């Protein structure tokens, strides 16, 4: 609204610009700093002598002959086999997202259409489950998983993450389905469809915006998880986040912090792309619960 902007006094404009500049610096600079630093040697990334070294790469020049080096990436991805963890992450995220969405759309649809009181109780139970810190559940899994030899497998972790994901997925899809008019599937049922046929032929074609948004958040949960994956996966099945954490324990003492730095950047890159392409869906998903009630 240009008319409103013109009426804005200069002090207010200055204040707004200052706030935005400070917030942008806080939000963006740590990432840019780490990205830039990941192509340097440790002596530059942590420079006691002069912080400008981290920008100019003085020691990197001395040690490797160039201003940038990919040694950190080589060490992490090839030497420490970070690619294996990356592949595990792809597998885990893919299955968690597909299974969560399949179960979630069925359940969320039923919860949105049912008018009985037990649907409300179901949602309330899901809300309580949503509040449980995942690590408290892990201490319930471990004795049973050890007993039945389920511990360490990727499949176990996928099932656990799907279950932990369900309350959130149900709530989100439930509110999306509420926005699809009930007349749509009811008229299909008047025409002779069963409930499932109505769902299959009428609802599925129009539900994709909600499903994509929910899928993004399921992906984030699986991708970002540390507590469950680190406790339930054996070291060869580890996903990226526990692998990054294991660098901290082992390689920091060896002076190979740069492995951790480069793997941190590698973990961030896909998230960066995801926000870039799906910004609108993420924003709508974050506000779905709040604004629509």
């Amino acid at each position, binding site marked *: 609204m240009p008319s409103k902007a013109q009426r804005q006094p200069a002090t207010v404009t200055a204040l707004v610009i200052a706030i*935005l500049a400070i917030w942008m610096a806080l939000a963006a600079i740590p990432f840019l700093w780490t990205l830039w630093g990941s192509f340097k040697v440790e002596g530059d990334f*942590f420079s006691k002598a002069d912080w400008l070294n981290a920008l100019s790469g003085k020691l990197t020049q001395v040690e490797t002959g160039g201003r940038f080096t990919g040694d950190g990436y080589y060490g992490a991805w090839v030497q420490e086999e970070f690619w294996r963890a990356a592949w595990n992450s792809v597998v885990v995220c893919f299955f968690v997202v597909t299974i969560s969405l399949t179960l979630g759309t069925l359940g969320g649809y039923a919860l949105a259409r*049912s008018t009985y009181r037990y649907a409300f109780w179901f949602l309330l139970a899901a809300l309580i489950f949503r509040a449980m*810190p995942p690590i408290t559940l892990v201490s319930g899994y*471990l*004795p049973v998983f050890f007993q039945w030899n389920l511990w360490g497998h990727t499949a176990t972790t996928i099932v656990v993450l799907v279950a*932990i994901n369900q309350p959130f997925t149900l709530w989100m899809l439930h509110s999306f389905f509420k926005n699809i008019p009930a007349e749509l599937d009811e008229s299909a049922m008047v025409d002779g469809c069963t409930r499932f046929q109505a769902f299959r032929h009428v609802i599925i074609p129009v539900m994709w915006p909600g499903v994509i948004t929910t899928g993004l958040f399921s992906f984030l949960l699986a*991708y970002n998880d540390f507590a469950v994956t680190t406790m339930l996966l054996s070291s060869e099945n580890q996903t990226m986040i526990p692998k990054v954490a294991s660098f901290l324990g082992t390689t920091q003492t060896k002076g190979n912090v740069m492995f951790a730095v480069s793997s941190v950047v590698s973990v961030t890159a896909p998230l960066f792309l995801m926000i870039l392409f799906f*910004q609108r869906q993420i924003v709508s998903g974050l506000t779905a619960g709040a604004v629509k009630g």
Partner: protein
Amino acid sequence: MKHKSFFWFVLPSALAMLLFIFLPIISVIIQSLHVDHEQVIRTVETCDLFGCKQSTTIDQEATAALREAKPLGQFAGVRTYLDRNHLAVDEVKSTWDGSKGWREFGSQMLNLPFYKAISFTLAFTFVVTPLVIILGFIIAVAVNSATRKIRGPLIFFSLLPMMITPLVGALILFWMVDARGVIGIALQHLAGNPELSVKASTPLMWIMLMVYGVWHSAPFAFIVYYAGLQTVSQDTLEAARVDGASRWLQIRHVVIPHLLPLTTFIALMQLMDNFRVFEPIVSFAASAHATSLSWAIFNDLGGETRQLSSAAATSVLTILGVAILLMPVLVRTWREFDRK
């Protein structure tokens, strides 16, 4: 929707939640009431030229057999809850009798693992949540008064701290405030103390963890408020302006009342999420200075000896904490549903 079709539609996700959320909670409660079997000790008498000696050995076979027969361990009641690593009833009592003032009592209590964890968890939750709400609101108002063209990029960068993996985001900040990192060096210059290190100081570590918490969660409050600001009635604002309300008065009397329902939503989500604070403590290697309930469970479960009973007891106490925090939400949701 018919009962039968409802049942079949929700069955898969109900089953998943029943098996992997509800039953584990029950399992945790049962586990917390048991402790490991003691090892079976056998006394053996060996006689030689110099006489007979009695020695004790661990009967591995009998121990294994006992564990096989009763994998839960032996029933211990609430003993685990009362021991030094949890509620520490005896220690608290003796500290209470022994200490002279509140200050001394408080500092003594912080040496007990459970109280150390819960005090940081609660401090974190109740410091970070209001700051997130205030900062998110300020950013939302600022972005809302920026030109439409740059709002997209502003939102993009604002989302970064929230979408980033908590463990990774905390590491990125930690490396910058390290004694050799760029912010760490700047702090040393500002304080005029070249030895200053966040890693070595408890208050600094608490502050850094909370700074991370605010940095990580402020975007969430910002996005929710920003969406709310789009639905503020322009007519009401216009009317306020005509009546001569200043910018501040417009915000105070039109915008803030409009956003109030969103504030309760943000506050409750934040209370739930901040109460489970865990990853930053791992990233910052902060356990010497600050621990949380989630970290305490993680610490019991990991390592060489998995202390399942101890972890289970802390888990039950954490779940109780969550339940207390969640009470207002449940009551509110319940009332809303009843009205409908």
